[in-house]
């Protein structure tokens, strides 16, 4: 069974990250993979020009050939975070490899072999920093031992650099020239492996250019739809217009008359609930090429039983959700007694916040290639964030054993959580089996926007009490949104503990009376997770409300946040959440919520943005801070109005504490992109439903920001830290939205309570 929330760490799978423990069986597997594997379009051979090449592979992640080639396996999916560079970078640094010559090979989906491959929840670096160091260090240890033996010196007198072992006398030998000696050496006791001092790293903690930069800019990089197989056909699917709709009948005569169309196949859908890993009901047109399949789809005549969701109207539901927040809800966290605080309060602020459904809208729409072979083997090429889940879903859909499904992972043209879900991969597999040929299933933009696993719309109500002496005494947060769990189960009516732990029940401020409540709502579409998940709407509401509370108390919002975080200490959320706070799947003892670290990023961002300066006419600044995915972030957004009244975002300041930073350039790029992504969420994007159907069809209806609307200068300040590394894919998004809203308030005098707002 898959975990309910793959964006939270799956502890069971994490244990398999111990695959860095060398295994001879894996070495053999890797060798066969390397010589025969079709990997991202690269069919590389181990045989070199000097004759027969031999390989040393102490574990599944690293191998070194007698031609002195260092090959590192990237086992996590690359969707733009740079992880395909960052993890191999760690291995290479510990190994002492010549980075400019390292070859990176993408792993196929096989968690038994590689450990967790679910690229989600900003946990790749968090989970694999140590294992990757040990992986590289093990290989280094063995190479050094082999060289020392050859030279009859002590291993302690040797080190590695530029893919060579170097003796203190200056003697050098290429890794490749040690392969013959080292490949049959017994594997060292893992306890004997020493890791390098942090200060000696040449790659970790540095700006390293992504491995695929040149391939991407020359058009050679292989994304999902770019894989070509001999005899491949292309499928385009007409899916149930309303989630849960069923095909009553269809007429394919006109579709089959379109030149190039070869076959029409019905796909049996899951109905209600639709599930996270199943295909939707639909009719597929399979053709010689994409255009013929699209034209064939237009010619299909289908009679649908639209089912119960055909009357669904999202605006109406949102209004009902908002009304529900005025009532008592299910209590999810409690401290003190909010009612008492409310009775004693000198002032009660009560505000509501609404946010819409969001689509992921990756520029690469979903696409996958399947080749179902007659002997019950199905080989897949897909841009998947979660290859093992896709593999399981295909095996289930086709009734195959897991080992009959081979999952090749291509580059992803954006993921943001969408491509965790394997529904499109399952479609390709079903259609390849039906067509008896390799099939690429191609989603159009309209398909992508209509059949996404949406970020849920949400209603929130926050009451804050201020006593007669001006103290902030009470916090009552009501939140309601159709839960992710509802996509798989119709009885999931409240947000889960996992979703609440994302920015809601982990409210960090030192308020004596806290009450957090949820309300029921039902899902009428597929709900999923989008970059930072429920932190998006929780941070929006909390960040805006904190700004209002500071204002009501007459305190600067930055000083107010620092004051309300209180003494430097580790926070506990379990006692007040009935033990249900999940801390992103990590023990809070290992990854504490430390107020001191949060205060440091706030102080840093205020200093860098020169927060206290007097701003020019027509300019304003807003602030918010939010910890998510165990990473501390504070953000200041500058807005300005030009003479024509148009609002622009000239500058953004971020300070981030993500512990040890592995690839500093990619940390900055995630924050730069996160600000842009969040600007879309705040100002342009929304999905609405009428009659169960999304009303936005393409980028004209579902708008994401373009270059002229983008925030201009984005300054990212990374706190130097030796704390355990945490991820940066998602944490830039949450604090940005309230910081922008708070800046808009300063500029216009009007508070923002609903997203998206028009800038």
């Amino acid at each position: 069974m898959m975990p309910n929330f793959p964006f939270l760490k799956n502890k069971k799978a994490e244990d398999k990250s111990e695959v860095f423990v060398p295994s001879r069986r894996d070495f053999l597997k890797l060798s066969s993979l390397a010589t025969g594997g079709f990997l991202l379009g690269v069919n590389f051979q181990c045989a070199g020009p000097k004759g027969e090449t031999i390989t040393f592979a102490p574990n599944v992640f690293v191998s070194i050939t007698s031609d002195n080639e260092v090959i590192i396996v990237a086992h996590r999916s690359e969707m733009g975070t740079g992880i395909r560079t960052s993890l191999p970078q760690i291995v290479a640094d510990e190994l002492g490899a010549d980075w400019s010559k390292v070859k990176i090979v993408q792993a196929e989906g096989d968690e038994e072999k590689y450990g967790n491959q679910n690229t989600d929840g900003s946990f790749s670096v968090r989970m694999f920093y140590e294992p990757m160091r040990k992986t590289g260090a093990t290989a280094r240890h063995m190479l050094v031992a082999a060289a020392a033996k050859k030279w009859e010196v002590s291993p302690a007198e040797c080190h590695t650099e530029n893919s060579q072992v170097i003796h203190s006398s200056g003697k050098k030998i290429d890794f490749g020239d040690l392969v013959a000696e080292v490949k049959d050496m017994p594997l060292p006791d893992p306890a004997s492996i020493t890791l390098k001092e942090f200060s000696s790293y040449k790659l970790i903690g540095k700006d390293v250019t992504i491995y695929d930069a040149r391939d991407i800019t020359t058009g050679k990089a292989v994304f999902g739809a770019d894989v070509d197989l001999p005899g491949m056909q292309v499928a385009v699917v007409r899916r149930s217009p309303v989630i849960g709709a069923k095909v009553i009948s269809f007429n394919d005569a006109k579709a089959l008359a379109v030149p190039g169309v070869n076959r029409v196949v019905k796909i049996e859908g899951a109905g209600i609930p639709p599930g996270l890993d199943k295909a939707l009901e639909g009719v597929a047109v399979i053709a010689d090429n994409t255009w013929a399949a699209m034209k064939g789809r237009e010619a299909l005549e289908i009679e649908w039983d639209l089912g119960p969701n055909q009357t669904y109207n999202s605006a109406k539901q949102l209004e009902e959700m908002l009304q529900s927040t005025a009532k008592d809800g299910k209590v999810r966290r409690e401290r003190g007694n909010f009612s008492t605080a409310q009775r004693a309060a000198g002032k009660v602020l009560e505000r509501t916040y609404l946010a819409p459904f969001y689509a992921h809208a990756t520029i690469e729409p979903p696409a996958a290639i399947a080749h179902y072979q007659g002997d019950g083997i199905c080989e897949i090429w897909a841009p998947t964030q979660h290859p093992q889940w896709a593999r399981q879903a295909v095996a289930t859909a086709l009734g195959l054993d897991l080992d009959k499904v081979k999952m090749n992972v291509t580059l992803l043209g954006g993921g943001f959580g969408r491509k965790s879900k394997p529904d499109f991969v399952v479609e390709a597999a079903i259609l390849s089996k039906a067509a008896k040929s390799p099939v690429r299933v191609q989603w159009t933009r309209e398909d992508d926007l209509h059949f996404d696993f949406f970020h849920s719309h949400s209603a929130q109500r926050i009451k804050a009490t201020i006593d007669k002496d001006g103290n902030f005494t009470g916090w009552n947060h009501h939140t309601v949104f159709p839960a992710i769990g509802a996509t798989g189960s119709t009885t999931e009516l409240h947000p889960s503990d996992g979703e609440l732990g994302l920015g809601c029940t982990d409210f960090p401020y030192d308020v004596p009376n806290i009450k957090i409540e949820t309300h029921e709502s039902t899902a009428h579409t597929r709900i999923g997770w989008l970059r930072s998940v429920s932190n998006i709407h929780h941070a929006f509401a909390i960040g805006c409300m904190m700004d209002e509370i500071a204002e009501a108390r007459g305190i600067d919002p930055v000083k107010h946040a620092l004051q309300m975080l209180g003494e430097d200490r580790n926070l506990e959320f379990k006692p007040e959440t009935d033990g249900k706070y999940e801390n992103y799947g990590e023990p809070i003892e290992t990854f504490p919520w430390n107020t001191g670290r949060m205060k440091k990023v706030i102080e840093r961002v205020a200093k860098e943005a020169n927060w206290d300066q007097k701003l020019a006419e027509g300019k304003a600044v807003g602030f918010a801070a939010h910890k998510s995915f165990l990473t501390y972030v504070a953000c200041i957004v500058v807005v300005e109005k030009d003479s024509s009244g148009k609002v622009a975002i000239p500058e953004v300041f971020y300070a981030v504490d993500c512990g040890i930073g592995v690839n500093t350039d990619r940390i900055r790029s995630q924050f730069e992109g996160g600000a842009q992504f969040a600007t879309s969420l705040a100002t342009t994007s929304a999905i609405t439903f009428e009659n169960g159907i999304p009303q936005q069809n393409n980028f004209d209806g579902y708008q994401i920001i373009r270059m002229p609307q983008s925030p201009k200068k984005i300054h990212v300040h990374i706190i130097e830290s030796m704390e355990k590394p945490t991820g940066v894919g998602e944490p830039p998004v949450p604090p940005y939205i309230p910081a922008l809203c708070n800046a808009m308030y300063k500029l216009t005098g009007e508070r923002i309570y609903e997203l998206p707002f028009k800038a």
Partner: protein
Amino acid sequence: MEKFTISVNGKNQEVTADPDMPLLWVLRDLLSMKGTKFGCGQALCGACTVHLDDEAIRSCSTPISTVGKRKVTTIEGLDKEGHHPLQDAWVEHVVPQCGYCQTGQIMNAAALLKKSPNPSDAEIEEAMAGNLCRCGTYNRIKEAILTASKSL
């Protein structure tokens, strides 16, 4: 279905296709040139940008029958060695995140620089407004265009 001969990256290519088939699918499906990407099919995102003569166009909305004698240039043909100043600047600034939209961005920028070798910030923003990037690499795209414009 009709036969068409089109010039792609300096080479004549003969294809048999529905006259309405967009150039994008001719390139990707019939000629197996995968550097030009599909994003929206409606000329709204720019991922499919190629050149017709010196003009940046959206190949997803350009039927093969309208190409005629005009020369098609794709990312594969922008520079033989893959070292067009924009491509080098893109690597220097490490512009790409996921990378999917970047071939379209580069082709669009290349057409801009042909017309306006030293574009201002405002000119760049206006010219690049039709190319979406969901990862949010806009600022580095702008920096890379400025860098390339200096080396032209």
